[in-house]
Each structure stands twice: as C-alpha cells, then as structure tokens.
C-alpha cells in the first residue's frame, strides 16, 4: 500500500486523526465519507479556531475600541489575508467574505450584472454549470432581457471549446461565467485559456471555483479572471463561510450588493459614501467565527500543499476507476482522459441510485444520489439520477475498497449479471 502513495509524507490515514468525525461509526461500521463534493469534513484546527473566537475574543468587529473588538477585527482581517494568499490575490482587499459560492455568484449578478447588462446583451455559460451559476442569470434575463448561451459538452463530458470560442465572437457577449470543474463528472476546464480568450475581447469573466478551490492550486493572477466564487464548507471551513475574489478595479467601480451598516463610510439623510474594500461588500455583522474558521482551513490546506492534494486525488481516482470498471452492470460517467477531480458518477441499469446509496450507507459509506443540482448537464448526457462518490484528502485506497465491496453487495441483491 505504502509505495502507491502519490506524494511523500501525504498519508490520508494520519490526516484522518485530525478530523474528530472519523471517530464515530455509522451502522456499526467505520465511516467512509465519500460525499466531499457536497461538503467536506472539518479538522480539529478549524473547530478550535471557531471555538476559540467564541471563548476568548468574541466581539463585533470594526465597531469599538475595546480589546476584544480589536482582537476580533484583527483575526477577521487576518483570515482575509490568508485567503488572499491561498488564491494568489494581489491584495487582501480583493477578498469579500460571503456565505457560500451561491452568494458570491449572486453578488456578481446583483452588483455587476444588474448595473451593467442591458436588453440584448449576452452571457455565455456552460451546460455543466451548477444551478447556482444558472439561476441568477435567469433572474437577469427576466429583469433585463439578456440572452443566455450554454456551451455544450462532448459525450465524455468535456467542454466543447470550439463552441465556446465561436460564441465569444458574438459582439454582444458581456460576460462568461463557468465552473472550474464539474461537480458531477469531475471534468476540470482549461480556465486560464478560456479566461484569456474572453478578456482579449473585453468580456468580463466569472469562475465558479466551488469545486476547484478545495482540490486544485489556484492563482487568480495567472488565471486572470475578474471574479472567482468559492464555498468554504467544501474546503474544510465552517458552513456559512465562503468568499468572492474580485479584481480590485471591479470592486472599486461596482455598486454594492447589500446595503446597511459596516458597508458605508458616511451616511446622511440624503445618501451614503461606501466604505473601503472589502467592507463595501460585507454589509452588517458578518459570520466572524466562520471567516476565522475559514482562515484556519486555508492554513491547513496550504500546509499540505494544494499540488499534493490534487496529486493524491488523481492517484485515488485512478485506483478507484480501475476497481470500479469490472463491477457487473455498472456505468461510469466522466472523462477517461484529461484533468479530472476525484469525482465519480455512476449508475446501475437495474438499481436506482437511491437504493444503491442506501445500501452503501448500511456499510458506513456516505455517497450522494440524485441530480447534483446540475439538471441541464444530466439532461444533456441522458442521465436521470446518479450515485456520486467524491474524494478528499482523508480518503485512501481502503475507503475505495469498502465502496467496491459494498457495490458487489448491490450486484448480488439486485441479481445483476
């Protein structure tokens, strides 16, 4: 086993000891958590950071001169700085904390789209988007009369880049918004190339990195995107934590998202001036504990090294595909070649994904079944529901072996040949 490990010193079993949840059992079995694309587990360090805030320096930020408020403010700003380093931002003022990637993308729709898109303007999306990067644009279609285009995928679930480049030639395309990686198939898109082509034509770019940031090294300066949306809870952070990276120039010129306290510098009865970045976009008392926890999550990941995280998952993906392929009646989705996250969607002709997931649960294996909030993609690939197993840093070959063994049980129960 040891020699098949991808990165020196990267031992998922050692990492598991950092995650209190792995002490529990499910139906008398060891928990094998393979629903990481939905949300990850959290290490003790993140839980401690949250608890430490509440126990030791709980106070509101930016509002008082007392010691606790000062300490809380420093810790909350420090978390922004950690996130900025994590994605390679020029300044921590380019990091806006939000609740999740959904909110980050809504922020772009409201603060940029609402003010900049006019009737007849066009937005390019892809068919593999999560609903959170489709529905906000439906909203602007309804309100502003914009037109949406969806880049198709090939039968393996890779973006049709030819179509993407063709769409960019349309004169009224103002925004492209696409995911770094598919949460159903694991496909990783050539973000840098896609962004460069858009920006050459003066088109604004939004990258949904909800699935990218937890698993891949990210450098927003190299990517060159205007916006990048991330959920903290998929990358070891607390639920309710997430961030939007935006180029400072965009944040300076855009209108705010939510209006209220903390986001202004001066208010009269006639109007207001906006606060400095990023507070202009963080109205009201934020999720301070969540933000601080997210900072701790970023510390944990950077300590591991994101290239090692990705290498580990690639290795596990290859191992899992090799073990899954021979299972009778199984159908595996996702690209056979090219960059891909540790995400595997599969179905059995005779067994419904819910039943499969339920049987796996009886073996202590947590997977997701359903449409994964990506119905246009499911429809395009002729998929109805699938079972999805998705890996993270604490999963290893042994977890895959438990999954595979349980799937052979499915084969027996449903008499699949």
């Amino acid at each position, binding site marked *: 086993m040891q020699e098949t490990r991808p990165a020196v010193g990267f031992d998922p079993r050692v990492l598991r000891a950092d995650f209190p949840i792995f002490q529990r059992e499910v139906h008398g079995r060891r928990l094998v958590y393979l629903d990481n694309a939905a949300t990850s587990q959290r290490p003790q360090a993140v839980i401690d950071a949250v608890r430490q805030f509440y126990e030791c320096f709980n106070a509101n930020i930016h509002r008082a001169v007392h010691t606790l408020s000062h300490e809380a403010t420093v810790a909350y700003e420090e978390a922004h700085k950690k996130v900025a380093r994590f994605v390679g931002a020029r300044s921590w003022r380019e990091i806006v904390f939000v609740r999740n990637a959904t909110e980050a993308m809504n922020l772009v729709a409201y603060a940029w789209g609402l003010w900049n898109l006019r009737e007849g303007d066009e937005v390019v999306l892809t068919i593999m988007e999560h609903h959170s990067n489709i529905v906000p644009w439906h909203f602007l279609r309804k309100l502003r009369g914009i037109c949406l285009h969806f880049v198709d995928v090939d039968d393996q679930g890779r973006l049709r880049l030819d179509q993407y480049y063709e769409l960019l030639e349309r004169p009224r395309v103002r925004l492209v918004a696409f995911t770094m990686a598919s949460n159903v198939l694991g496909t990783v898109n050539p973000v840098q190339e896609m962004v460069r082509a858009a920006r050459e034509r003066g088109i604004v770019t939004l990258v949904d990195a909800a699935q990218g940031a937890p698993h891949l090294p990210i450098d927003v300066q190299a990517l060159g995107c205007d916006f990048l949306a991330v959920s903290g809870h998929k990358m070891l952070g607390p639920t309710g934590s997430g961030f939007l990276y935006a180029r400072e120039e965009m944040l300076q010129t855009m209108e705010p998202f939510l209006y209220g306290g903390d986001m202004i510098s001066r208010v009269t009865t006639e109007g207001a001036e906006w606060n400095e970045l990023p507070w202009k976009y963080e109205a009201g008392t934020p999720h301070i504990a969540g933000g601080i926890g997210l900072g701790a999550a970023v510390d944990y990941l950077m300590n591991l090294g994101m290239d090692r995280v990705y290498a580990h998952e690639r290795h596990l993906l290859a191992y899992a595909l090799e073990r899954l392929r021979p299972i009778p009646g199984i159908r595996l989705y996702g690209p056979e070649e090219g960059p891909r996250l540790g995400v595997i969607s599969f179905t059995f002709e005779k067994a419904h994904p*819910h039943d499969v997931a339920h049987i796996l649960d009886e073996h202590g294996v947590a997977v997701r079944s359903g449409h994964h909030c990506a119905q246009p993609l499911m429809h395009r690939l002729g998929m109805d529901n699938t079972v999805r197993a998705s890996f993270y840093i604490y999963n290893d070959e042994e977890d895959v072996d438990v999954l595979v063994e349980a799937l052979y049980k499915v084969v027996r129960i449903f008499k699949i040949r």
Partner: protein
Amino acid sequence: MSLYESEAYEYLLDHYENPRNYGTLEDADISYEEGNPSCGDVIRIDVRTQEGRITDIRFSGKGCVISQASASILTELVKGKTLEEVKQMTKDDVLQALGIPISAMRLKCALLGLKVLKAGLYGIHRWPDEE
C-alpha cells in the same frame, strides 16, 4: 442485519420487478401525477370509480425500489375500497403494508404513492400525516 438482505426486502423487490396494476387507464375518472423533486421519483395513478368505490386502478412511474414497490402495494390495498375508506388511510397503513422499517430518510419515497392518490382523489396535497 442489512435491510436489503432480509426476506421482507425480497417482497419489495418482487413488487419492484413485477409491479402490480402497472400502466395507465384509457377511461380513467381521475388521473394524477406528481414527483418528488429532491430525488426525481415520479408516480402517476389512474383510477376508475363507480358509486364511490375504486373499481380499477393503475400506476406508472420511475424511481427507487421503495417508491415503486409501495405504489404497487398501495394499488392492491385500495382496489375495491370506498373513497371514504381510502381517505382515512394513513401513513402507518402504508408503512405496515411494506413490512420493513422505513428510515426517516426514505419516508417520502414510501409515501409518494399515497400522496399522489390523495391529491388526485381529494385535492389533498400535503404529505400523509404531516404536521
């Protein structure tokens, strides 16, 4: 003990693989279809009634073993019953007929058939016995 390896589960699997009263009715008095958006299960029920009694019933749909088998079992339960009797049917009547313990996570799968039937017959759109 795994639920899925029990004899009771074999009973459900049989209903899943050989659904009773499967299909549609050309001249149905009532036909109604509804899905469970969170999982994509869909059930349609066609009913023919005479003098306040269910004289014929068919169901069709797609979904997991529990949703489809429970719809199949439900059609057997209600055939020949009066509309008043069917209206009184509860969640427990269905769960009992299934013969296996249904966990909270799968409750909606098990009750979709009864929900569709009651929505079609009486315009009741709540989940059976929901608070």
